[in-house]
């Protein structure tokens, strides 16, 4: 059975082409394609400034991390951003081990991440 993941979207007041996405569940090889499709649809609609809240993201594996890097790169190429906030310490350790901490824009606090959106 696929791992459960839910994406909840919120507008970011005062910012154009921007959205806040809450990730809830586990991100792994069984559901990356679903998540990829949803985020690509946002990019195609011109929403290129994304803040993602990982407070309720329990788990991520290397495949999930791969698409996060992909989102970050694609958003920047389109003149936007991909900012991550509220990562739990287990998930952060995985990001750090992979060497992706320096490639992603990571914030401790969600408000701080939202405020950093142009």
């Amino acid at each position, binding site marked *: 059975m696929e791992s459960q993941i839910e994406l909840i979207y919120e507008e970011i007041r005062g910012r154009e082409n921007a959205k806040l996405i809450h990730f809830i569940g586990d991100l792994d090889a069984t559901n990356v394609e679903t998540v990829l499709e949803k985020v690509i649809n946002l990019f195609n609609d011109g929403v290129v400034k994304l803040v993602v809240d990982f407070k309720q993201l329990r788990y991520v594996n290397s*495949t999930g991390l791969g698409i996060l890097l*992909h989102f970050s790169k694609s958003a920047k190429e389109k003149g936007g951003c991909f900012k991550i906030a509220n990562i739990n310490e287990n998930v952060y350790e995985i990001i750090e081990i992979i060497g992706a901490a320096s490639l992603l824009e990571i914030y401790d606090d969600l408000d701080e991440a939202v405020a950093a959106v142009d």
Partner: protein
Amino acid sequence: MSSTFKIDIEELSSIPGVVIVRFQGSLESETIGAIEKIFTRVQMGDSVFAVADMGSVNLISSAALGELMGARKRLIELGGDLVLAGVILEIRTKLNLMGASKIFKIFNDVRSAINAYKWETGKKSEQVELTFPSNLKMVPAVRQLISRVARQKGYGNRDSFRIETIVDEICNNAIEHGLNDSNLNIGIKVDIDPDKIEIDVTNISDPEKIFSLKTHLKPEEHLEIQNDERRGRGLMLIKMLTDELTFNISEQGTVVHVKKVREE
């Protein structure tokens, strides 16, 4: 002292080193003297691993909890421990609020506490072995099962999470690099003891992929990360999270063996 309060000790002749301290009633501040006295008796004896049977306790004051923490500290200094068993929900909630559940190991009942003691001191390993269809959708259930086994055996949250990641990455690799046939099975064998966990994952190799698989597993690969790579970091993650990693690749199948030492 509260009239409802009672305390007594039971030495277990069948399990040397373990003593059960049975509490009954309300552990209020007036009971501190009795609690101190009973644990002084425990410390003077041969048994330094104490199980506090809290099944008949209906109230615990901060002062009494402090006395139990002191007793635990003294027993730990003697190489033992004080664990709690059978705590009712109301008191468990209070222990959580007071942060005591992070200090004491809490078991559902005395038997579970004694089993945990025997497991920790016996140094015997236990095995879990299962097979599952070669399908990525099966992996979440498998990785969560192995992680839960580790947690149930006393491994901490961080270790259990790392074990979940290791199992996930190895199984995903076994499926992606194995023969593309969901009628075939992936085998996983876990050997866990209080100090370490060893995991073997076996698949049926795809003969056409053996060469690329051997290249993929070269140690000098995967040292650098590219921002636009979407895949291929699983092996690096496994290497970083384990203490030992070996491969046995043949036409018959690939066996990946990992060892991870318990850290907490």
